[in-house]
């Protein structure tokens, strides 16, 4: 008879081993899924995880894409991880990402066709502020009216998507675009563009920001009183209250930071890889970042690695779609499965598996 016994403290070893175990289990289950779709499972897994980086034919194109896809995921997930640690659930990063992109792009387009050095920095500020303000809606409603932040932040994603459509069709539409939806392409407007910094590396300012966020968060969590308060609130809310942690301030800080980082991710995307505000601008990074945050065990370094892995599944998924005709949705299901396995095997961190009958205490 199997039974679970609670560990006095979570196991260190297992907390490092579970993400790896979850990835392996997901590959096995994913292989079964791909086999059911009539594809060779080994070839599919190899195409997704190996070929984008090491296949001679594709690697030159897809290697730079790794940073392009991972950058926004890491940036958003870092912000989310702060709140998740403290039990504050911002799951509307997708909306904050959209609003950040709209605000940033609007500032850039307002200056068109002026050429000045300060335009791009202003856009960065506007993008961060846009995301921050959008995240402040659920945060303030939670602190003032005790409204559930999960539902409000999520519902605001749908509002943001409608706003995006309205902007792409209305206020921000390219006046020289022949009536097609979508804004001017920021890539063709040098003062407002976010170019590749090193040729063929995929590196742009968003990736730089993601790395800075990883380092800053690492220092914050390990060396700063605020980081301690965040960890304390997550591990023992009661102890945190006695220790004098101000829950209202913590909610505002965590939601605000995650919103600002998601807004930044949106701005760097719209001014770089995407180039313009369009109806289908958002690609679900805000939701995938939730998986990234958990896969990285809410730890900055872990999130960096998880973000790279998840970015890889995006590129590998595209490649598998092109090479093997694997549907795009299969990758989405695959990513969801990863989160299931991750949460499932986490039981090993907090519990011991015992065999045999229950002994009398």
């Amino acid at each position, binding site marked *: 008879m199997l039974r679970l016994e609670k560990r006095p403290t979570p196991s260190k070893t297992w907390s490092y081993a579970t993400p790896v175990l979850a990835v392996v289990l997901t590959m096995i289950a994913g292989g079964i899924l791909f086999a059911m779709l009539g594809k060779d499972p080994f070839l599919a897994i190899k195409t997704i995880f190996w070929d984008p980086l090491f296949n001679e034919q594709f690697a030159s194109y897809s290697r730079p894409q790794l940073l392009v896809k991972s950058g926004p995921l890491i940036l958003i997930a870092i912000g989310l991880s702060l709140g998740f640690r403290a039990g504050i659930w911002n799951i509307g990063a997708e909306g904050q990402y959209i609003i950040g992109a709209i605000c940033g792009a609007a500032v850039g387009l307002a200056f068109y066709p002026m050429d000045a050095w300060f335009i791009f920095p202003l856009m960065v500020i506007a993008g961060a502020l846009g995301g921050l303000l959008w995240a402040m809606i659920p945060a303030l409603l939670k602190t003032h009216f005790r409204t559930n932040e999960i*539902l409000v932040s999520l519902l605001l994603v749908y509002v943001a998507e409608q706003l995006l459509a309205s902007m792409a069709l209305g206020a921000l539409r390219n006046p020289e675009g022949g009536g097609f939806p979508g804004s001017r392409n920021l890539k063709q407007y040098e003062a407002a563009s976010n170019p590749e910094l090193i040729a063929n590396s995929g590196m742009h300012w968003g990736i730089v920001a993601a790395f800075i966020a990883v380092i800053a968060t690492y220092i914050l969590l390990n060396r700063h009183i605020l980081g301690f308060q965040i960890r304390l609130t997550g591990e023992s809310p009661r102890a945190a209250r006695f220790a004098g942690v101000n829950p209202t301030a913590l909610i505002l800080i965590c939601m605000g930071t995650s919103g600002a980082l998601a807004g930044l991710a949106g701005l760097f995307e719209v001014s770089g890889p995407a180039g313009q505000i369009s109806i289908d601008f958002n690609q679900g990074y805000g939701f995938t970042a939730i998986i990234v945050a958990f896969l990285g065990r809410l730890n900055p370094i872990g999130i960096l690695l998880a973000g790279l892995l998840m970015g890889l599944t995006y590129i590998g998924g595209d490649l598998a779609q092109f090479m093997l005709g694997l549907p795009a949705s299969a990758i989405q299901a695959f990513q969801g499965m990863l989160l299931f396995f991750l*949460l*499932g095997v986490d039981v090993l961190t907090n519990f011991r598996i015992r065999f045999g009958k229950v002994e009398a205490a």
Partner: protein
Amino acid sequence: MDLSAINPLVLIASLMVAATPILLAAIGELVVEKAGVLNLGVEGMMITGAICGFAIAVETGSPALGFIASMIGAALLSLIFGFLTQVLMSNQVATGLALTLFGLGLSALLGQGYVGIKPPATHDINFGFLTEIPVIGPILFTHDIIVYASLALIAATWAVLKFTRVGLILRAVGENHDAAHALGYKVVRIRILAIMFGGACAGLGGAYLSLVRVPQWTEGMTAGAGWIALALVVFASWKPLRVLVGAYLFGGITVLQLNLQAAGVAIPVEYLSMSPYLITILVLVIMSSDRSRAALNAPASLGRVFHASS
């Protein structure tokens, strides 16, 4: 703009149709939350139900089989959530989110071959002369069986929770799982059954969207209906009859804004489409700002992990 084109009788009849998916999903989630489990995967279960029901209805030509398949499909999906949260004791918020993300991917995968197909029609029940009654006839007697089934489900849930032993045990598990366990009730088993009931209801709601309300299959077609259903449970302060009121209110708003879009009101379409979400948020704020009401009715063990030895 011609507002006189909006017929109030048709409006009321169509709001009942528009409300049915969220009504079904919300009453299922209410039972789950009454058992002390917060399942945020409603959206994922709804869309899985939508495609399971659609696919089976198209393949067999029978909407009834489709509705049954949608319930089975979504209940099986919810079983993953039940296993993870109840047996492996994972975090309910995160697992619910995973269920939604997985459900959206899985449904898109299953639905690849079904885009642009018309499902077999679900017929309205023929009430004969009752339909001819002025005002009441067109409103009450022009619907299909699922609309009436959803109303019956509300009444049944209310009665079971309030008057029966099963309802009492369910509420006990949700209010204090340690006490219920000490009394000898199987907390984990009861909760898993409640989760499967919630899954079946959400699946049926999803199938109603794809087979009757729209009726078509498109990726991500639930468009937040599952989340509105979750908000509805809070709005109803965990009371079945208020779920009915809330769902019809939201149904009314949805239908009204669609009618306003069709009538060509001077407000851009995107802003009208936002309104159901914004009003949901507004209602949530009003309901949760009343401290006494929100705190009194929420099940005390909601979202807490149960482990027998602790």
